[in-house]
């Protein structure tokens, strides 16, 4: 029990540091068309065990997002997006539930749930998260086209980063 908690806490901290130290610096502009933010951090709370209480997931996501906001200097923006995707996560679990259901100890990883399941889960929630983030960042749907383009490119970059990291660290879990 305490070991599981420690692993998850450790991952939260590591992902947090990776985001603010590495991925925060990696911001590109794509020929004046789009900003690419690599939002790697959703993986931190998206990989909490499937049976984690919704409320706990949201609280973790909220604190996590608030911490990021301190470093991004945008109070509330990441936190709002994090809470939203933490909530959406449970709906996506219900959609993707296999016939046999989820085991009590299952975590949403490639190892336990398979590559296809993991890709569909991560892509849906990540897209939701990134779109929410850019919408709240712009704070007005007047800029809808900008939001859409930015979300699309940032999604691909973040998605690639997450999948690569999963293969790099898969033996850790």
């Amino acid at each position, binding site marked *: 029990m305490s070991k599981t908690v420690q692993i998850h806490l450790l991952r939260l901290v590591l992902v947090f540091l990776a985001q603010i130290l590495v991925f925060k610096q990696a911001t590109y502009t794509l020929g004046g068309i789009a900003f690419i933010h690599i939002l790697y951090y959703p993986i931190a709370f998206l990989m909490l065990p499937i049976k984690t*209480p*919704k*409320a706990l997931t*949201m*609280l973790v996501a*909220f604190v996590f*997002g608030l911490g990021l*906001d301190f470093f991004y200097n*945008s*109070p*509330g*923006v990441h*936190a*709002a997006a994090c*809470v*939203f995707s933490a*909530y959406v996560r*449970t709906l996506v679990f219900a959609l993707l539930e296999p016939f046999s259901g989820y085991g009590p100890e299952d975590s949403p990883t490639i190892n336990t749930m398979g590559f296809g399941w993991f890709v569909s889960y991560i892509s849906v929630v990540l897209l939701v998260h990134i779109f929410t983030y850019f919408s*709240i960042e712009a*704070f*007005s749907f007047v800029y809808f086209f900008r939001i859409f383009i930015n979300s699309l490119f940032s999604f691909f970059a973040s998605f690639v980063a997450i999948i690569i990291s999963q293969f790099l660290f898969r033996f850790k879990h």
Partner: protein
Amino acid sequence: MYNVVQILVRFGAPLLFVVLEVFCFYLIINYNQDKKDIFINSSAYYAGRIAEQSNKIGQYIDLQQQNDSLLRENATLIENLISIEYSSDKIPEPDTMYTSYGIIPAHICNSTIHLRNNHFTLCKGYREGIRPDMGVISANEGIVGIVRNVSENYAHVISILHSQTRISCSIKRRSGHGSLVWNGLDPQRMSLIAIPKHETVIVGDTVMTSGYSTIFPKGIFVGKVEKVEKSAGSNSYTITVRLFNNLAGIKHAYVVSNRFAAEKIQLENEVPNE
């Protein structure tokens, strides 16, 4: 208390979600200057829109009151018109004539149109100052009838579409006067009789009240001359008048009160019949 706990258990996660998001947006709006500006601008915009809509609804609800106030305004305007009509007369004391006629606006709550003898009921009565033998004119042009009976809150009006109607009328810019009667056929047409044949009457002339009676002031337009007949063996024309107002669709009317009617009638009655 148990129910509250139950609700928290069932809807805890969505509630927490809403609470956290609200808090996040509170932070976003208060600590990000650009988003604060957007929020203030758009909330002002939407608040303005909502205020505009509610204003519209309020106006709609208020229509009845506005209608009434317009009626009152019209009444004063008609009063002024009548006094202007009299101010061009060479009667030496115009200031008494100015206030000679008063106008009381009223709704029509019941009416008949297709009988031989038609009636109206006004939703105002003695309390508002309506008395028997006052004239009733319509909102735009034309006359409606004469008050016969008055109760506390209602007035019974004999329509001009009545077999007994005889209204003293003249023709605008021509001399001579006659009586307006209704032959009971067409609610849009009446006959003007007893205009002597030596007067000139042309189709298209405007018929107006003569002001010889105490009921209607002079100069209220009644209708247009549609047909002029010279019946053989008679000394006067029979003129068909097309009314300006359509009494079938009428909703409002104005009661004309002549403040000196009693005085005039008394004076006229002092002259012994010859």
